[in-house]
């Protein structure tokens, strides 16, 4: 079992290394999406900050999920750390 796990680990590590080796150069725009955001952010959302425009407008669902993760974490902490019999 440990041998299988080690083989899977090494294969996955090699896959990730290969993927990292194949990435485009740092700072080189890989697709037309970057240019689209830079050209149209101010007209479409009215926001100067393109990062906020992407996070809250173009990728709004992602931010909603992030807020849900935060809510779930806080609800879990509140359940675990609740003080029993506080009002007695």
């Amino acid at each position, binding site marked *: 079992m440990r041998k299988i796990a080690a083989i899977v680990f090494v294969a996955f590590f090699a896959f990730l290394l290969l993927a990292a080796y194949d990435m485009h150069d740092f700072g080189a725009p890989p697709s037309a999406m970057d240019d689209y955001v830079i050209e149209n952010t*101010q*007209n*479409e*959302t*009215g*926001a*100067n*900050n393109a*990062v*906020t*425009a992407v*996070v*809250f*407008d173009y990728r*709004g*669902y992602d*931010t*909603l999920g*992030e*807020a849900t993760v*935060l*809510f779930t*974490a*806080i609800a879990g*902490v*509140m359940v675990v*750390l*609740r*003080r029993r019999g506080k009002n007695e």
Partner: protein
Amino acid sequence: MSDENGEGLSPIVKVISSMLFPFIMIFSFYVIMHGHLTPGGGFQGGAIGASAVVMLIVAFGARHTERRAGEEKLSAFESIGGTVFVVVALFGFIMAATFMSNFLVGTSVFGEIPPFGSNPGILNTGGILPILNFAVGMKVIGGLSAVVLAMALVSREDD
């Protein structure tokens, strides 16, 4: 040295932190409300505001902070922020076609369109982005400070 409960740090720390608290909260509000113009936004500004509440917990002790703002109140504050976020996103169905569409662009509320490229930054822009930033800021301030307060209260009970 300390107050009647034997909690908190020295009076110097208490006075300085209670003087600094409003300024940190104003800076947090600034980072949240300028989220569509400058680096920052709801999450970052909320973390600043929550750190101000944590400073009060450290300086005054958890019991004193709980009397001023209990973790139920902070948790309710967080839930209001989340509800505002979802309601504003759902309003996109009514005002426009899709969930979370930016229906305020072009109207008089946060609806100005800035000139293309670099500009000084007009606060009345961004559509629903400032409202969503504010909701997320409420969420992060309430949530993080409620968690730290709950942990501090539990660790006090073990003494």
